[in-house]
């Protein structure tokens, strides 16, 4: 897959949604790139966490993913 295009599509999707929602399930990312294999999308999302574009949020039982530093959690948790 074209990684750069994939990353761009993911960031655009998150920015577009950022007013209403800041965190998403991994599965929501599969829908952003419907023509890619889910394993590839998973790897891309994890890579974007590594390069600090995205970040994980976890309740302990489930994991959600969003743009780094967005959402009310970031401020409320006093996390830099």
């Amino acid at each position, binding site marked *: 897959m074209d990684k750069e295009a994939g990353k761009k599509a993911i960031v655009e999707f998150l920015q577009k949604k950022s007013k209403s929602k800041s965190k998403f*399930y*991994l*599965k*929501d990312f599969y829908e952003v790139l419907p023509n890619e294999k*889910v*394993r590839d999308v*998973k790897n891309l999302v*994890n890579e974007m*966490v*590594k390069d600090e574009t995205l*970040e*994980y*949020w*976890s*309740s*302990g*039982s*489930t*994991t959600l*993913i969003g743009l780094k530093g967005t959402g009310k*959690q*970031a401020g*409320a*948790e006093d*996390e830099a």
Partner: protein
Amino acid sequence: MAKHATPLLDQLESGPWPSFVSDIKQEAASRAKNVKGVDYQVPADACDDVLGIMELSYVHKRTHWKHGGIVGVFGYGGGVIGRYCDQPEMFPGVAHFHTIRVNQPGGKFYSTAYLNQLCDLWELRGSGLTNMHGSTGDIVFIGTTTPQLEEFFYELTHKIGQDLGGSGSNLRTPSDCIGEARCEYACYDTQALCYAMTQDYQDELHRPAFPYKFKFKFDGCPNCCVASIARSDMSFIGTWRDDIRIDQEAVKAYIGGEFKPNAGAHAGRDWGKFDIQKEVIDLCPTKCMWMDGGKLVIDNRECTRCMHCINVMPRALRIGEDKGLSILVGAKAPILDGAQMGSLLVPFIKVEEPYDEIKEVIENIWDWWMEEGKNRERLGELIKRQGFQKMLEVTGIDPMPQHVQEPRHNPYIFWREDEVPGGWQRDIKEFRKYHQR
């Protein structure tokens, strides 16, 4: 003198059982004294503030912990669970109070030196409170601050040689029974398989890839000491294909009272003379045992390997010699849809390194679940929603009698059109020759 008065919590100490409240108080007192002169990296009064905030929750009848958070260590998507309290001014010691899950050693074997190392690290960089072990099996360290996470992780991995466990939508820390290390019932080396799977699936363990949590558990025999059949999405339960080995002399010795049944485990009370008919034969779930002129006979074709007779008379009965494991899928605790036990998928598979056959089953299931599973849907729920038959299709396993618990109920296997000669189309004229309208 305690920092906060906790009259409600104190009541929890009044019963006959050990109390977590007493444990936390003990740790709070020990941190206040600090005999070893530890340079505490999280507030020394964290344990006092845990007690304070819990007391407040009992007064308000609502929690003062916020749900989840963004903490983690670099490169890991699990193992750390962010916890923040919503009364940080009142209880600054627990403003951050993150949980860390640490991968437990195989079979939960520790040396005391190792345990001391773990505890010392947690005294220094955490609250000192532990949960040994969480229901998944992890060592759970409760309560640290965000700046301590990386420090803790570095020392855990570099000095103690241990890794974080799983949390969130990951493979959870695989867990195994003590197995061949100490137990004569073990049908395979649980620790070898558990370790291999932990190493092979590091990515799944540390980087969220799944719709929800996924648990592996490895039990050496159907006694299921790590409760794999009840708690894990995929359970690996030791079993055997040939016959239970019988030592007729030892059977006689049990009947004659020379050997204590259950290796003396229930000797705290006088249960009367051992009665093999009542205590073993009549309790066999498949009724496949009987006495024939002073000899115990087992119809092994009917035996479900429930372990009961072997547990009662371990010196007389032993597991067979052709050993392997069964794979069951779909167990879960009752968050959605109620509790579910595992369903048998693979009745018998040999356990041989490098475990390729086992891994093939695992990976086929993951591919299906990652593709089809809804958010927060456990494997057991997906199997119910799409059907056991669908899972057999994706794993390439043929339906077999062992899959059926009760005919016409579990599971219900339908013919597919391409399996039926002529498909679903019928010659209506031919049909009408035999059947009136």
